[in-house]
């Protein structure tokens, strides 16, 4: 069963890849069917998972200490649910979104392959298998970002994403080295059994390596720069890979390696700090974006910062809960945005939208629910999970991170509401010339010769795209209520000790006890809500109040042109990477290729060859062609031998 769960999407990917042209429209249905079947199998296996230590299946053994197998335990089951459940819905949505694209079948082959890779990642029972999945999801992400590979920007974004992900891979490899050298095994069980007895430095080094991997995959500072560019991919890809599942692999890894983080305070501090800074940076950068997908991308980065902060400081349940709720509401947001983009013929700039609430009511409601969830509107899913993360930092003794988390919550409310107001309120600005709106030419050039999602083709029925979104809106609202249900009763507030969610987090039963926080939880919640309210109100005043709506075009233009340059340049991270790594590597390579190889190394050899040539030219004078001359030389040689033996010979 677990093999079927794991390999069905792969079989689907192979079938679609091999028979894509023959399958035509069925490719999408086949892809969705395999993923949803996997989801059903996961449901069937759930009972088995919660009893005992999970479902296990051995696979192969490479060498001593390199034995691999599958493991489905509560933690991986939670991820499997999200991957196959949300993934299946996004597959269905994609049938509508991608209809008419020339490479329709290829898209589903890649998507199915991604699901397989992600399942490999979470089902592995060892670090090497995890690394295999880690690399394969990076590959799938690369394929899908560069899906429209005739766009140079997509190709560049794909390459960037892949290379940065490989940086993460080598971090993970380094972690494996350290752990293998210390424990001579790579399985989770083997490593964690010895986690307590390892030297502190070893654990910290291993955690550092693993966290480099997390930072690359989950877009944490300073390896986050690929995520905004990754929005070059089709929108369903952004929803599935760059919001709901793949980018949360880092959260999974840290949660999985909780026994290591538990014994390394340095690692906790490092990861918590990076997570908090990422959350803040993502939120700040989100405030100056105009591309709707980039806004969502920065918000993803920011939210993952929250999750990483949560699991990093030790509030594992809170971080995982945030992953869980985020998967739903961020998928809702992306898919809603996708409906807009689809309807507006690939317009992604919010300045050219406006007043869409009446034109696209379904998308409006979907985005509204998603926005309210993400900013933590009381009662919606994000409210519970974000609050849990922020308060968790305080509980585990990081007041500074707590403060950053609070501020970020306010900024999140500001930029998400800004997006919502600019997009749906006021009047439609699609007909206003770009220059008047301050839209720089060719920030995202439309593809000249082929419409990516092919609106000329037969339109798929609207319900294909709406039903999955509607199905995702429900958990966006209610997913947070798993936090209820403690031993005091099914509706009592349980928090980290809740019974329902506790099923998924049994791994952390032995976690270090939280310190008593200075601020009671209700007060903290009120403070957060106050900041959220301020943020939303500022956004309302600037973008949705009647004064703002009246001269929206001028205001947007002014804001576009006067934005602080470091922010529009994304705080110069890209430039720094280019300056510090890319340019020197190319320069050194060029120097080696043009100077060292031909001149120094080969030069030495060529000097020898030249010497031989010179000797040859000089000796040519002796080459008279006269046979007697040659004979004379032979005799000269004989004479030499004879003289030598006559004087030095030791013949006995």
């Amino acid at each position, binding site marked *: 069963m677990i093999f079927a769960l794991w390999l069905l999407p792969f079989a689907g990917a192979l079938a679609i890849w091999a028979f894509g042209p023959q399958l035509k429209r069925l490719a999408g249905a086949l892809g969705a069917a395999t993923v949803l079947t996997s989801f059903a199998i996961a449901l069937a296996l759930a009972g088995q998972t919660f009893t005992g230590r999970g479902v296990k299946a051995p696979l192969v053994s490479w060498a*001593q200490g390199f034995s691999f197998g599958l493991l489905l335990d509560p933690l991986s089951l939670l991820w499997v649910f999200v991957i196959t459940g949300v993934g299946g819905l996004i597959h269905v949505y994609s049938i509508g979104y991608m209809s008419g694209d020339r490479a329709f079948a290829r898209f589903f082959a890649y998507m199915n392959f991604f699901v397989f890779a992600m399942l490999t990642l979470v089902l592995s029972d060892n670090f090497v298998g995890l690394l295999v999945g880690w690399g394969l999801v990076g590959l799938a992400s690369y394929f899908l970002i560069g899906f429209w590979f*005739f766009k140079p920007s997509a190709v560049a974004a794909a390459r960037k994403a892949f290379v940065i992900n490989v940086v993460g891979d080598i971090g993970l490899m380094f972690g494996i080295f350290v752990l*293998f050298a210390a424990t001579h095994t790579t399985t989770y069980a083997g490593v964690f059994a010895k986690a307590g007895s390892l030297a502190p430095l070893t654990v910290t080094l291993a955690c550092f390596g693993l966290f480099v991997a997390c930072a690359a995959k989950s877009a944490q500072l300073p390896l986050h720069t690929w995520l905004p560019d990754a929005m070059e991919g089709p929108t369903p890809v952004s929803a599935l890979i760059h919001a709901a599942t793949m980018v949360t692999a880092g959260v999974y890894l840290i949660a999985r390696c909780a026994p290591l983080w538990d014994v390394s305070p340095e690692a906790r501090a490092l990861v918590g700090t990076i997570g908090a800074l990422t959350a803040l940076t993502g939120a700040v950068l989100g405030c100056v974006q105009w591309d709707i997908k980039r806004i969502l991308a920065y918000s993803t980065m920011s939210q993952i910062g929250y999750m990483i902060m949560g699991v990093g400081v030790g509030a594992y349940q809170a971080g995982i809960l945030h992953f869980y709720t985020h998967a739903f509401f961020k998928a809702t947001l992306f898919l809603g945005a996708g409906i807009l983009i689809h309807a507006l013929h690939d317009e992604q700039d919010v300045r050219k939208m406006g007043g869409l609430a009446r034109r696209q009511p379904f998308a409006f409601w979907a985005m509204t629910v998603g926005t309210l969830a993400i900013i933590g509107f009381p009662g919606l899913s994000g409210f519970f999970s974000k609050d849990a993360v922020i308060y968790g930092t305080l509980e585990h003794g990081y007041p500074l991170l707590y403060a950053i988390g609070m501020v970020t919550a306010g900024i999140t409310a500001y930029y998400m509401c800004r997006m919502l107001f600019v997009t749906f309120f006021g009047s439609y600005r699609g007909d206003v010339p770009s220059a008047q709106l301050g839209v720089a030419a060719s920030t995202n050039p439309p593809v000249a010769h082929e419409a990516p999602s092919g609106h000329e083709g037969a339109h798929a029925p609207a319900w294909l795209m709406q039903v999955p979104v509607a199905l995702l809106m429900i958990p966006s609202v209610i997913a947070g209520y798993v936090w209820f249900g403690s031993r005091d009763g099914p509706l009592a507030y349980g928090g980290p000790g809740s019974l329902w969610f506790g099923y998924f987090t049994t791994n952390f039963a032995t976690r270090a006890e939280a310190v008593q926080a200075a601020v009671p939880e209700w007060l903290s919640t009120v403070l957060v809500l106050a900041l959220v309210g301020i943020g939303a109100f500022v956004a309302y005043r600037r973008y949705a109040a009647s004064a703002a709506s009246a001269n929206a075009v001028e205001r947007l233009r002014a804001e576009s042109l006067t934005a602080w340059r470091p922010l529009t340049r994304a705080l110069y991270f890209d430039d720094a990477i280019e300056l510090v790594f890319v340019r020197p590597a*190319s320069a050194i390579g060029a120097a080696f290729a043009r100077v060292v190889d031909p001149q120094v190394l080969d030069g030495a050899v060529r000097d020898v060859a030249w010497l031989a040539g010179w000797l040859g030219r000089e000796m040519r004078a002796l080459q008279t062609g006269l046979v007697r001359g040659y004979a004379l030389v032979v005799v000269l040689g004989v004479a030499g031998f004879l003289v030598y033996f006559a004087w030095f010979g030791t013949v006995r």
Partner: protein
Amino acid sequence: MIATLIVVPILAAVLLLLLPRRAEGTAKWIGVAISFLAFFATIGLAGAPDESVRWLQRPFTANFHVGLGHGLSYWIVLLLTLSTGCALMATNVPRRRDFVAQMLFLLGAMAGVFLARDLVLFALFWDLMLIPVFFILLGWGPERSNSAWRYLLYNVTGGVALLLAVAAYGVLEGSTDLIGASLGHGASVVGNGWGLWIFAGFAFAFAIKTPVWPFHTWMPATYVDLPAPAVAVVSAVQSKAGLYGFIAIVLPLLPEQVQAAAGIMFVLGLVALVYGAVVALVQDDAKSIVAYSSLSHLGLIVLGIFSGNALALGGAAVYVIAHGLFSAGLFLAIDQFETREGSRSLKRLGGLGARNPKLAGGLTIVALAALGLPGLCGFAGEILILTGLYASGNVWPAVIALVPIVLAAAYMLRLFQDVMQGPEVADVPQRPDLTLLELLALAPLVVAIVLLGVNPGPVAGSANVQSAVSLVQGTR
């Protein structure tokens, strides 16, 4: 029976010349058939007992001793026959009858190198395998290129060093019938005075052949000038002769010297690893990229061999096979777009993937294996080598060796994307996609890449015993 793996291809190469010059198709299929027959014969002969005929008695004992076992020799011969068959299948070089004859001779000579269990025999085949490559470079390489002579100059220098080392070893030891004999046999006889010189001779020959930095400058020129089927075999298998020599000869026979020189070899391997990767970043010729990436990858194998760690040694064995598979695949795929578009320049080509999805798919998989994508064969070797390296206490080499992995991703993606992706270039002829035959030529390599990536255990496993000999012979 094992000897037939050597004799039959060489005989066939000679007999091919009896065919009429125009029978190019026939010659090609004979070549393909013999290669694949040899492949299956190798599988059938796995673990067969050695065969030995007395040869020289003076000045030292040397026997015509060949053996297959089921260790590294076995895997490399499988790789050799498979890559030769695949390379010949889709070839359409001019004067094909003569070309196939050269390739079959190469096949036989290289089989001899890997099957020889006697040092003199090994050295004999070592020099024999240079000859067809030299003639292919002369006959099929570009006009006015001196790469043939450069190839010969470098490799014959190495061959002479090898011969001297073998002779010295034979005189001191009394016998050269040693490859795969009991471990540590030679250590007691060859003292440190001569031992270092003998080690230097072997290491020099093997380092040139592999090549190890800084002896590599013949390699890019040779790889660029050789026609694709030949370069596929040369880079896949012939470059492994040096590494095989390190594993099968130097490690068991000269263990003390290996210990003494491990530091130097580490430095050379690391420099090759970084140097090759950095240079590959800026090349424009697709073949040059692969050539310099080979330099980088082979440096990694050298690290694995000299780490003195069983895991890393197993990883080195895996990577030897893996590199053979993906470099053969890369060169064949590059040839396929070169014959279509008439260029290998990254600046000039672009967007081929739109009309050649099969070719793009094939190139993707081999390029991914080359950049060490987890799940494919390159990764399996890489992680075993590096983990073993780190576990054996060589922390810094392992850490430095991580950097070229990122660079590998950068240059391999650059190769793939600049050729296959982006907008189509208007003035490049867009030819149709792969034919079935061309696809069949790549398919076995791709299948092997995936299989080895999923389970390299059989190749790596024989290193469980702490001895290189068992790796060669496969005895456990």
